[in-house]
């Protein structure tokens, strides 16, 4: 039996044709999708299991549990509004939350660079503990590896999380229907632009903070009041809102139309994006989520978010249409339109 399985895996063909791994393969956009769909999925994951999501729901002895894993690689380790430790917990909680599950336990692996000052490590471990407490999740175990000086940018953190499905909600891109509304929990781009500016190469300053937080309370409120109408959720991290919605559009075959004037963006983010030639729709977020909600549930969904602390700025930014098939379209302020694709590689500033 074992041998047969091994042979089946060995015979599987991969579609990934690139000769080496580039930074873009980790940036969350098109290249990442090519790697996952072209290499990981065919070798490790049966094609019959449906679209890939932030977390997988599996059955163990008849009980459904949600599992996820994530790695955190960020420079600098601390930035306005958060740090890598806090990010690791919130990111894991959020991946489970948008799959429709409440995080129960997280295990953590630290990859530490030799020479890392202990007080920096201590600060991050404390930040993780606090974030876990806020999110109501237990840190159940972990592992530590140390690599030579000059590697791992101080530290990398990898997590795995396990969660309990929230009752009354079923998340699947296949359940998305024409006429459904696109909800966004708050302003976009804060995290990505904060990190870009915190690196200090730009000589730009703005009153911005990372938006890192657990979105679980918002998701719980949404599911409680509009659960039957919630079709799909995603936290638009790397690759931003544009990439998350393009993935959805491809998975459900429908068109997503966004109304530009409805998309909340802070002035600091807008200004930095204008200067650097970046599209806020491609910038990473760490404390927002998108939801597709049936039109008849949209009002209940919005008021659920508005009445939950941190959800005051939630807004309907668009809706699902038949056209453009499998793509995302933005209706501009002026009645014009433009297509918005996934991010290609890392966002790079344009100068000339």
């Amino acid at each position, binding site marked *: 039996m074992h041998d047969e399985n091994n042979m089946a895996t060995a015979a599987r063909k991969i579609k990934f044709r690139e000769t080496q791994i580039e930074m873009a393969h980790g940036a969350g956009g098109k290249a990442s999708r090519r790697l996952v769909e072209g290499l990981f999925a065919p070798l490790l994951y049966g094609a019959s299991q449906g679209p890939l999501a932030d977390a997988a729901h599996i059955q163990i002895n008849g009980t459904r549990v949600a599992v996820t894993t994530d790695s955190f690689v960020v420079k600098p380790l601390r930035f306005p509004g958060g740090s890598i430790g806090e990010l690791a917990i919130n990111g894991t909680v959020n991946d489970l939350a948008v799959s429709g599950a409440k995080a129960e336990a997280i295990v953590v692996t630290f990859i530490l660079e030799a020479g890392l000052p202990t007080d920096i490590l201590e600060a991050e471990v404390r930040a993780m503990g606090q974030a876990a407490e806020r999110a109501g999740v237990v840190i159940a175990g972990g592992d530590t590896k140390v690599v030579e000086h000059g590697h791992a940018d101080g530290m990398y953190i990898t997590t795995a999380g396990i969660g309990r499905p929230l009752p009354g909600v079923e998340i699947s891109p296949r359940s998305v229907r024409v006429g459904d509304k696109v909800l966004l929990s708050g302003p976009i781009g804060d995290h990505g632009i904060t990190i870009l500016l915190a690196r200090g190469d730009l000589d730009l300053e703005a009153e911005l903070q990372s938006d890192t937080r657990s979105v679980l309370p918002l998701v719980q409120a949404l599911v409680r009041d509009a659960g039957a109408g919630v079709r799909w959720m995603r936290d638009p991290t790397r690759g931003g809102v544009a990439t998350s919605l393009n993935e959805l559009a491809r998975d459900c075959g429908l068109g997503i139309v966004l109304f530009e004037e409805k998309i909340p963006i802070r002035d600091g983010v807008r200004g930095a994006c204008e200067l650097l030639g970046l599209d806020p729709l491609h910038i990473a977020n760490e404390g927002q989520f998108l939801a597709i909600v049936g039109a008849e549930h949209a009002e209940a969904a919005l008021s659920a978010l508005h009445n939950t602390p941190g959800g005051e700025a939630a807004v309907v930014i668009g809706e699902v249409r038949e056209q453009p098939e499998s793509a995302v379209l933005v*209706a501009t302020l*002026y009645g014009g339109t433009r297509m918005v694709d996934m991010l290609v590689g890392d966002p790079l500033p344009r100068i000339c």
Partner: protein
Amino acid sequence: MKFVDEFRAPELIAKAGEEIRRLAAANRHYRIMEVCGGHTHAIYRFGLKDLLPENVELIHGPGCPVCVLPMGRIDDGLSLAAQENFIFAAFGDMMRVPGTHGSPLEYKARGMDVRIVYSPADALKLARNNPEKHVMFFAIGFETTAPSTALTLMRAKAEGLKNFSVFCNHIVITPALRAIIDAPDMVLDGFVGPGHVSTVIGCQPYQWIAEEAGKPVVVSGFEPLDILQSIVMLLRQLNAGEARVENQYKRVVAWEGNPAAIRAMDEVFELRSEFEWRGLGFIPQSAYQLRSSYAQWDAEQRFTVPGVRVTDPKAAQCGEVLRGVLKPAQCRLFGRECTPEQPVGALMVSSEGSCAAHYNYGHLKPITISSAAAAR
């Protein structure tokens, strides 16, 4: 946001769109080239095409310096990056542009020291902070970025900094316009003139387009209202049978340009006898090189450069698209062999290239959005 929102006010945009539709004579077809890649990007990003009547056609010009840079120049620049203790510095714009053996980002992934800088002065700072290494700034851009390269070189000379050089690919806009206007298949009626370039060179250098070629030029800003207003100004001239150079971007562009910037360029640069443009071929006196008084900081003089020549793939029809004879989607390779991730031709390379802009932002097929407005 100040100085931005005023030029994006929907009611003003709607008015300008109406004015364009009123001015566009039903029996005429207007072909207007926006010269600058920044304009192309803005036109797609704000969906301005949808506001124009069918007989006002925008054609995307050669004003994207990344797009028109021949692959051989990238190969030459990157060939130097393999040396020991060498830092290759360039703008983010360059990082994904493919050479024969990969883009600067791919070289970086293979372990070469490739850095993204935000200005030539940052590259100079790298040289100061890394005295044991050589820092080469791979300079690109029109007269927009050339003055900052010039000022950086003047500073390097004043400081006597020995571990810094520039691989100069700075190009000049007007010879490219002449190549387009002089082409036998020239179809254009008028030009939306480049905004940033004109802040440096002013409006005078376009005078010949009006006088010799008889085509109007309106130097334009980059906000939606700027671009639409410039189109209004062009239509008015065309309807009146006039051909003048006008300045819509007065809040930034002075008629005579920026004399200090021009002086700095003149101190450091001289024109090359000719330079190759991707999609357009060799154009005489269309690019800058460092003067002999700056030879010490000229990477091409200081190092042995292979002088790679890579011919553009025959199937790519970049030249025709650049001259406005073909639309991006009419090229044989568009969206199939040639995409922003795996560009074959010049115009797919940068997000400001007309093909990349069309691919990223253009419609797959026409879609009416009137029902979207109604749904709000």
